[in-house]
């Protein structure tokens, strides 16, 4: 089943869109996403992918065009990074409340200013409240698999919500790894193409995107919230069936050594790989470290996450983005604190911000974090003086 190929994360994503037999692609080049657009153009140029390829003049138009195409019943794909995602931001909200099953790849990158093309999660996190289902892959294989899974989820009649698949700029987008590539027939048997949503059709005219007064607007927003909440079940079924089809197993969140960990290090994206390898070493040295990787950021999988932190003495949350001036600083941190507090867990939960703008994240950084977190053992949340620490930054 499948074919093993050496692929970068970007190419893995492009191969996934090809396997999903997308009908319309609209995308605009931006570093580090560019190779996705190039590869898809090549597929269309060679006749390997039968799709309309729109050379749009901006990311705003890229997302607008796939909104139009999806509303007309097509299976669509787009991808972007950083400033491009911010330019799409307006339309992201519209796409989700209009309940269009768009799939997008995000090669995550810092946002300006200063302009910086390297990896962090500022773009992904800035877009996390736009009503999309949001995944973060840890490597090229995951990016590939999650894009195909995304169609299955987005087009489910009970969901109809756009899905974004994040993967770390350069670290994943440009690193060539062996990827088990899913073929079109396999992808379509797992995620069959059927227009389950309302579409623009002259035989059956409908109005989409109308004006809703205060008497009606609220219901649209609540329906979106309910749908994204309900998508949890569809996501878990999609993962289960993915394993049946392809043998690879995914969960909303993965724990490594969390059963007996004193410190659980919470990570997203490519840092997870470094963290697992660090944890293996730290354990040999007697530090009981566990790793919790968050694969699904929206809807936030609280139940799955809590299972991995409920026995911890300290939870150390790593963020690759900040919300300046907020009460929580790191966006993932806020999710973790709420998840714990709602379930009455009062152990120190500390936030460590690292790797902004592509600054290298080393095992030694993780060691510092874990040792710092370990020092908080036995305390309550209110006993912690500072909840956040910037790691690897000039004072």
């Amino acid at each position, binding site marked *: 089943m499948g074919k093993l190929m050496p692929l970068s994360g970007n190419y893995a994503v492009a191969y996934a869109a090809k396997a999903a037999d997308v009908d319309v692609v609209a995308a605009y080049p931006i570093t580090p996403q560019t190779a996705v657009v190039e590869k898809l153009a090549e597929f269309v140029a060679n006749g390997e992918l039968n799709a309309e390829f729109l050379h749009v003049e901006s990311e705003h138009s890229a997302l607008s065009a796939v909104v139009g195409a999806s509303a007309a019943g097509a299976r669509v794909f787009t991808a972007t990074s950083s400033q491009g995602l911010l330019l799409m931001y307006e339309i992201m909200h519209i796409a989700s409340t209009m309940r269009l099953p768009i799939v997008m790849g995000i090669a995550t990158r810092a946002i300006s200013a200063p302009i910086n093309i390297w990896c962090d999660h500022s773009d992904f996190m800035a877009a996390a409240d736009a009503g999309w289902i949001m995944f973060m892959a840890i490597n090229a294989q995951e990016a590939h698999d999650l894009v195909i899974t995304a169609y299955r989820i987005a087009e489910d009649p009970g969901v109809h919500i756009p899905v974004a698949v994040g993967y770390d700029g350069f670290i994943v987008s440009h690193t060539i790894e062996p990827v088990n590539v899913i073929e079109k027939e396999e992808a379509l048997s797992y995620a069959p193409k059927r227009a389950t949503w309302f579409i623009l059709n*002259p035989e059956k005219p409908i109005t989409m995107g109308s004006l809703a007064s205060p008497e009606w607007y609220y219901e649209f927003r609540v329906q979106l919230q309910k749908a994204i909440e309900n998508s949890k079940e569809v996501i878990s079924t999609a993962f289960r069936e993915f394993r049946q089809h392809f043998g690879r197993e995914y969960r909303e969140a993965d724990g490594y050594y969390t059963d007996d960990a004193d410190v659980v290090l919470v990570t997203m994206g490519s840092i997870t790989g470094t963290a697992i390898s660090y944890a293996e070493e730290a354990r040999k040295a007697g530090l009981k470290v566990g790793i919790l990787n968050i694969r699904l950021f929206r809807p936030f999988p609280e139940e799955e996450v809590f299972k991995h932190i409920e026995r911890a003495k300290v939870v150390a949350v790593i963020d690759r983005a900040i919300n300046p001036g907020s009460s929580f600083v790191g966006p993932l941190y806020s999710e973790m604190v709420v998840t714990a507090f709602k379930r009455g867990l009062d152990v120190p939960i500390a936030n460590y911000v690292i790797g902004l703008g592509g600054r290298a994240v080393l095992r030694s950084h993780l060691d510092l974090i874990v040792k710092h977190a370990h020092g908080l053992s036995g305390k309550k949340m209110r006993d912690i003086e500072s909840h956040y620490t910037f790691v690897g930054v000039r004072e």
Partner: protein
Amino acid sequence: MSTFTIASIPKEELLAPGHRMCQGCGAAIVMRHLLKALGRNVIIAHATGCVEVTTTLYPETAWRVPWIHVAFENAAAVASGIEAALKSLKKKGFLSYEKRVKVVAIGGDGGTVDIGLQALSGMLERGHDVLYVLYDNEAYMNTGIQRSGATPLYAWTTTTPAGSVWRGEWRRKKDIIGIVKAHGVPYVATVNFAYISDFYTKLRKAAEIEGPTFIHAYSPCVPGWRYEPHLTVKIAKLAVQTGIWVNYEIEKGVFRVTTPVPKRLPVEEYLKAQGRFAHLTKEEVEAIQKLVDEDIEYINKIAGATLIGPVEKK
């Protein structure tokens, strides 16, 4: 194409009554006849604007054809996506019908010449089979009469008020036709519903031609231009008779005036009918007359004949 007569206007109303457009609204007339001219086999992508908000107040809609609104600046991009989808689905055998469906993008002047200009340029340049209709009421009327790039010289708007320093808008209307034409599209035309036969002929031609086509529709606005609702068609007619508005088309690069005006009326006749020009001095009216005279001279020159005549002195 058969010859148009008033009797041949389809009876079927594809814009349902009960919408909330103003009494005497020029855009309402544009939309009603645009739909009659194009028929049911269309999909419309609409920019945010007056028409969008007044025709689709949930849970009602005035549109009896498939219609979508996404945002203000992207009607052309949304239309591009719809057109690409139809093309792809047809090619792959997923489309439930065989007939040709024309994708139509509609935007006001703000949504077209200002905020939507980039998306429009992209759509034109990529060559999508989309008809773009600009209904031009010469300001941001939906938000309450703020100037746009299409506001004419000296017009009062709430952001170009006539005061002791400002005399209304001090810049000339953006040449959107020139911009569209520069993309080398197969068909560009201006329409004015006071000349309804010309209106239908051009809309149908623009829809039949394969590729990106553009219609610039004159669209008077009762509250924004400050006149009585029953005067809409009269003002529209005056625009053509004074040479403020010229009905023409550019088909495959060939320019043709479609409504010749042997004798023009002075622009004053047009200006004095509207409150937005009420503050104008004699000198300002003369300045506008001079600019219109120059425009007409240019139009006659490219038309190769004096199709728009001189001003008839009273």
